[in-house]
């Protein structure tokens, strides 16, 4: 039946009602538009990079420009796209709904977090306009503190401000999960997506302050030259690396755990059966969050750390692979005795399974001391992390967007185009990044503007793949926007999925989410594969 209350999209149409909204759903939409904007900038920049890398000579842009391009690609994609991505869009939208709550614990803090994100983003864009930054997203000293002639402090300030957005979001999520669950919704009845957001939030709140301090120290060193990182003043350049990676390694788990959570929602729905091994999957998210803080030194195997540190970090890096392996096994077994429907979200989720498996396996390569000496700082590492972050996390983001699109917008996306995009993305992605494993082992270093001629064929393949991958991202942008006006209207639960957001909230939900607070009576993923389903 048609709802008598207005949905959250209709409830207020002034600019003020959007830009001063404390409704978690509207804030999620504001974030979605923002991260899409940054993704387009980060993606355009890499288009230029791959264009340059079509030929060995540096003939498209100058070296200084190229160095600014790869730096801003990393800075934008890490801090202004991937780290926020799923948590601030799907997380903000769905967490209260999945818990049976009206909103997050601190709605005004949520709005503030968006403004902090935008404020930090503006700083970074200003830096790009005034000439860019050329230190790499990793800002290694003493290049960044003493030698770089670029807007280092401006970008550091932008990232510093955005860090507070992350901290605010994570505090909100943790408190909400602890205090606002519906009656009957015990921890082990929660959707796994909630567990993954919770684990992600723990990492965010503990690690981000370290990044903040590190950036402050970098700015102080650059501005005042007091000798924190400058060896000629008694400082230690490696101190920066320890501080930076102590944050940035956990950060990569921020950039995958939410994606794992999305996949764990999509696969049970389209296999029509409960997730296999709920508790191991839930616990493995927490294990990844904890172990992720203990491996930062694996970024420094060649930097000059002691052999004892190298051994410990290598060992712990293998340890952190194990909880991820458990998830992969459990997702695969979830297909057993299921009833499989290959809808668009499922294609993305299964793509995640394949690409994350490959990316994760190559983690075993870089964790091996003998191999890392050779592949460190080469394209092997670039391929490794893109398989996980792009092949994994971005696939999950796309899958999640498609899955929850009807809930968020009240419209269905066109299924055929969805499948075309998912496959295009999968094939384009592999063509872009698989050759980079080979390039790395052959000895092509990272961040190279020009390269020896023998690397050209693989680079051309990679650039070709990138153009196909771009299509895979541009298509959804168009048809998703199209669907807002012309897409088929969605029922409350077009996927016949389990979960409070599907069963008790409209598509799209009313502003306060539920007409009355729902009560939970049983476990999550209460699917029966023996029943056939008619999706809308």
């Amino acid at each position, binding site marked *: 039946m048609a709802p008598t209350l207005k949905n959250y999209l209709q409830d207020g149409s002034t600019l003020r009602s959007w830009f001063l909204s404390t409704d978690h759903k509207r804030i999620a939409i504001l974030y979605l538009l923002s991260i899409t904007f940054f993704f387009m900038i980060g993606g355009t920049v890499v288009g230029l990079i791959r264009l340059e890398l079509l030929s060995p000579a540096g003939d498209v842009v100058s070296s200084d420009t190229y160095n600014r391009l790869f730096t801003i690609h990393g800075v934008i994609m890490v801090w202004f796209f991937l780290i926020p991505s799923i948590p601030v869009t799907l997380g903000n939208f769905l967490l209260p709904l999945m818990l049976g709550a009206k909103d997050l614990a601190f709605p005004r803090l949520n709005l503030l977090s968006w403004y902090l994100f935008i404020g930090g983003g503006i700083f970074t864009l200003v830096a790009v306009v005034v000439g860019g930054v050329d230190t790499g997203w990793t800002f290694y000293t003493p290049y960044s503190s003493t*030698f770089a002639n670029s807007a280092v402090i401006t970008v550091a300030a932008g990232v510093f401000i955005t860090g507070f957005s992350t901290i605010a979001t994570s505090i909100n999520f943790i408190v909400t999960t602890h205090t606002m669950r519906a009656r009957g919704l015990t921890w082990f009845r929660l959707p796994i997506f909630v567990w993954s957001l919770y684990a992600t939030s723990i990492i965010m709140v503990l690690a981000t302050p370290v990044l903040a301090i590190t950036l402050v120290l970098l700015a102080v060193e650059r501005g005042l030259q007091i000798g924190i990182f400058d060896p000629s003043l008694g400082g230690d350049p490696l101190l920066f690396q320890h501080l930076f990676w102590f944050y940035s390694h956990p950060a990569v788990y921020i950039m995958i755990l939410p994606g794992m959570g999305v996949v764990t929602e999509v696969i049970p729905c389209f296999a029509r059966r409960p997730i296999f091994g709920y508790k191991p999957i839930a616990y493995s998210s927490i294990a990844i969050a904890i172990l992720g803080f203990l491996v930062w030194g694996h970024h420094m195997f060649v930097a000059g750390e002691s052999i004892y540190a190298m051994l410990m970090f290598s060992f712990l890096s293998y340890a952190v692979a194990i909880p991820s392996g458990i998830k992969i*096994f459990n997702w695969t077994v979830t297909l057993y005795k299921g*009833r499989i429907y290959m809808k668009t979200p499922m294609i993305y989720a299964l793509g995640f399974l394949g690409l994350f498996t490959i990316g994760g396996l190559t983690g075993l390569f870089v964790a091996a001391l003998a191999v890392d000496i050779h592949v460190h700082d080469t394209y092997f590492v670039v391929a490794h992390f893109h398989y996980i972050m792009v092949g994994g996390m971005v696939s999950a983001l796309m899958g999640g967007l498609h899955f929850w699109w009807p809930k968020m917008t009240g419209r269905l996306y066109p299924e055929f185009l969805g499948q075309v995009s998912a496959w295009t993305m999968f094939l384009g992605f592999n063509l872009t990044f698989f050759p980079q494993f080979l390039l790395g082992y052959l000895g092509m*270093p990272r961040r190279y503007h020009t390269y020896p001629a023998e690397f050209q064929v693989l680079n051309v393949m990679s650039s070709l793949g990138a153009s196909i991958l771009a299509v895979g991202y541009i298509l959804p942008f168009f048809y998703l926007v199209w669907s807002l006006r012309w897409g088929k209207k969605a029922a409350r639960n077009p996927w016949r999925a389990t979960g409070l957001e599907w069963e008790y909230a409209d598509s799209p939900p009313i502003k306060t989410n539920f007409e009355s607070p729902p009560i939970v009576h049983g476990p999550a993923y209460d699917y029966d*594969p023996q029943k056939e389903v008619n999706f809308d």
Partner: protein
Amino acid sequence: MWDFPLFPEQASTAARHVDQVYFALIALSIFFIFSIGGAALYFMTHYHFRRDADRRNVPKSNWKLEVIFIGSAVVVSTFFFFWGAYKYLKISQATDDALELFVLGKQWMWKVQYPEGQREINRLHIPVNQPIMLRLTSQDVIHSFYVPAFRVKQDVVPGRYTTLWFEATKTGTFKLECAEYCGTDHSRMLGEVVVMSAPDFARWLANRPVQSTMVAQGERIFARAGCSGCHTAASAVHAPDLQGLFGRRVALSTGETLVADASYIRDSILLPKKHVVAGYAPIMPSFEGQLSEQEIFALLEFIKFEPALNDAANASPNTEKNDANK
């Protein structure tokens, strides 16, 4: 043997070991991709919604299976950790008979110094089947010395020495690349390692124009910079004896002891208050900004190898005596 276009050639003793671990990991990856992918594809087709299949008694959990999963992951991880570490220790093993060369990285070139005094830019000549030890430092930012054909890489850090051991097994010319982003011309900081047979290398060394050996250069700097003013037998100033210092245990004023290695000597010149020797006042001035890294390399050689350091420094900088004796 390995003329495979997808892997660089194996031109050092380390290469074989690194490639073994790499190939084993590839085999493992193929195994996992096929088993997981195969299982997933099988389930996707066998349990496709259009197919009739037995979907009763869906297992929600199975701790035995989880233990097998976790157990096999633990076994695989442990094995590769140990093997990767063992191979690493093997290929980074120092030997006493290594030929020591000095490499200075700077934006954007590699400067090489031989003990006999030869110098090169962006090129290293070395003999085949001979362990080599590079003592590396940077004059400005962090660089990284990378020779893919040898499977070796070592970051080159300003303010400290790092070392790299390798032994080439083939003659030929092999690419040297900088592998740590260092600014504008990072991708142009390329070089070559030229590996020659031992007689060819000796001939090359002999033919290379040389002004003086590094020890002789170091001796001149020792006098010119004023080190000999305090650190010789004739000095009135109470300063530690540098004769035979390299490799000696030194007691510090804090009560610790350490072995005087190259980094200690370099730090003592540039940061003299960092390690004050027990029984001495911290009055040595710093030479930061007065000596280049290459001059410090030369001083290091002088301190290491000059048998008559306490007397030799008294000779005038223009003497030919030491050069003629080498």
